[in-house]
C-alpha cells in the first residue's frame, strides 16, 4: 500500500533531531534506512504523524574503532559489511551481516535501525546480546548508555523512550583467541530465520574459557542460554562438549508454534545450530580477518 500521510522532518544535526523528538515524541518515528519502518507503514501496522528522517545527519555516519567498534545510527549494513574495522574488531557483527535481509535491503537498511526495531527473529539484536554491546541513547535530557541485556524488552519493544534516539552502538573488541559464527535456518536465504544462533567461543590454549550463545527467532527477544554457556567452560572445544551444550539448549528454550515452524522443530534446529555454530566458531579461531 502507499504510505499514509506524515509530517516530514529531515534534521541536519543530532541536536535538531533530539529537539524534534522532544516536541513530537509519542507521535513521531525515527526514519533511518527505512527497510523496516516503511513496510510497517505500508502495511498500516504503524502510522506515525511525524517522520524524523536522520539520513542527512553526517555525525551518525561513522564507524569508529575504540576498544571495539562504535557504529553510528546511519551506517548502512552494506557499509559495515565492507568495513575492515568491523571485520577485525567486531567479527561477530561481520559474520552476521551477510545473513541480514537481501543485498538490496542491506544497501539501504542500517545496523542500528535493525537493533532499534528489535525484531526477535533478526540477527543484530542477538549479536548485541552475545557481544554484550552497549547502546548510546540520546535525548534533550542528555545521553545515557544501556547494556544490550537491558535494552531488548519484548517483541519490537526496547528500553528506548519515545523522545529518545539510539544514536550509536558499541561492540566490545573480540580477543585473538575468540572464534565467532552466525548460523541459521530459514525457508529462503535472507528471510527471517525460523531459528538462528549468534555465538562466540574463546578457546585459547585448547580449553574453553568463555562462550556466548544468543538465539533468535525463538522468543519475544533474542535469548542467551547461560547454562549451556557455563557447561562449556573448562572443556576442550570438541564435538562432545558441543553436543552436551546442545542438549541443554534444547531443554531450556521454550519457543512457540507459528505458521513457519512448530515449537518442537525450532528446539530441534536450535540444538543442531548449537553444534554447528560452535564448531564453525572454533574453526575461525586464529584465522586473520
Amino acid at each position, binding site marked *: 500500500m502507499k*504510505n499514509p500521510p506524515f509530517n516530514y522532518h529531515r534534521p541536519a544535526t543530532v541536536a535538531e533531531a533530539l529537539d524534534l523528538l522532544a516536541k513530537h515524541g509519542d507521535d513521531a518515528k525515527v526514519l533511518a534506512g527505512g527497510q523496516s519502518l516503511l513496510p510497517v507503514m505500508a502495511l498500516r501496522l504503524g502510522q506515525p504523524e511525524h517522520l524524523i*528522517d536522520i539520513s*542527512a545527519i553526517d555525525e551518525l555516519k561513522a564507524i569508529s574503532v575504540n576498544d571495539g567498534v562504535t557504529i553510528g545510527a546511519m551506517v548502512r549494513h552494506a557499509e559495515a559489511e565492507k568495513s575492515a574495522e568491523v571485520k577485525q574488531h567486531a567479527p561477530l557483527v561481520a559474520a552476521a551481516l551477510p545473513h541480514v535481509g537481501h543485498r538490496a535491503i542491506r544497501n539501504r537498511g542500517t545496523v542500528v535501525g535493525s537493533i532499534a526495531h528489535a525484531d526477535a527473529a533478526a540477527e543484530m539484536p542477538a549479536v548485541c546480546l552475545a557481544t554484550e554491546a552497549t547502546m548510546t541513547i540520546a535525548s534533550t535530557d542528555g545521553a545515557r548508555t544501556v547494556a544490550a541485556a537491558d535494552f531488548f524488552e519484548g517483541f519490537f519493544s526496547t528500553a528506548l523512550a519515545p523522545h529518545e534516539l539510539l544514536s550509536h552502538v558499541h561492540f566490545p573488541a573480540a580477543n585473538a583467541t575468540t572464534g565467532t559464527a552466525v548460523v541459521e535456518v530459514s525457508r529462503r536465504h535472507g528471510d527471517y530465520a525460523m531459528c538462528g544462533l549468534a555465538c562466540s567461543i574463546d578457546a585459547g590454549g585448547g580449553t574453553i574459557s568463555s562462550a556466548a550463545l544468543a538465539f533468535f527467532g525463538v522468543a519475544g527477544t533474542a535469548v542467551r542460554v547461560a547454562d549451556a554457556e557455563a557447561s562449556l567452560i573448562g572443556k576442550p572445544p570438541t564435538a562432545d562438549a558441543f553436543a552436551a551444550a546442545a542438549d541443554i539448549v534444547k531443554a531450556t528454550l521454550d519457543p512457540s508454534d507459528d505458521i513457519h515452524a512448530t515449537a518442537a522443530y525450532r528446539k530441534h534446529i536450535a540444538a543442531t545450530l548449537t553444534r554447528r555454530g560452535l564448531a564453525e566458531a572454533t574453526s575461525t579461531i586464529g584465522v586473520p580477518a
Partner: protein
Amino acid sequence: MSLPSVNAPIGQTLPISVTINETAHSLDIEPRRSLADVIREDVGLTGTHLGCEHGVCGACTILVDGEPSRACLMLGVHADGAEITTIEGLAEPDGTKHPIQEAMKQAMSFQCAFCSPGFLMSTVALLRDNPNPTEAEIREELSGNLCRCTGYTSIVEGVETAVTLLGSSALGSTGDQATGGVA
C-alpha cells in the same frame, strides 16, 4: 554532502534533483511518495514494477548510485542528488538489448515477465561485482527477487548465459557481442 534541514507538513512538496538513466530531472514531490511511484508516475518510466509495495518481492529493484535498492522502500526525497538506473537504462538508444537482457531472452528466463526488471537490475550489479559467479552465488544474490512463473531454473541459466555472452569483455559492451550467437 550536507543537506539543509527540512520540515514539510503533510501535503507540502519538496524539490529534488535526480539523474535517471543519465537524464537530469528536477521534481517537486510529496515526501510520503515512494521513489517507485515518482519514477513511474512523475518521470513516466513504468518499467520499474510494483508488486508487493513493502519490500518483499523485489520487482521494483533499481540501481541507486550503482547499488541495487528497492524503489518501494525509498522515499522519493531520498533520491535527491542520486544517480539512478532503471530497466529502461539498460538497452542501447537504438534498441539493442543489454547483453544480460539478450542472455535472459536466450535462456527463456522470462515468462509473464512482471518480475524481470527487478531480476535484471539485480543481475547487472551481481555480474559487475562478481563477473564469474557460482550457481550458489547467483541464487544467493538473486534471493531478494521473487518469480512466480519460472521456478528460477531458467533465470539462473540466463545469468550463466550472460556470463558466457559477456565473456572477457567489460559489462555494458554493445550490440555486436550481445547479439552474437542469436539465430
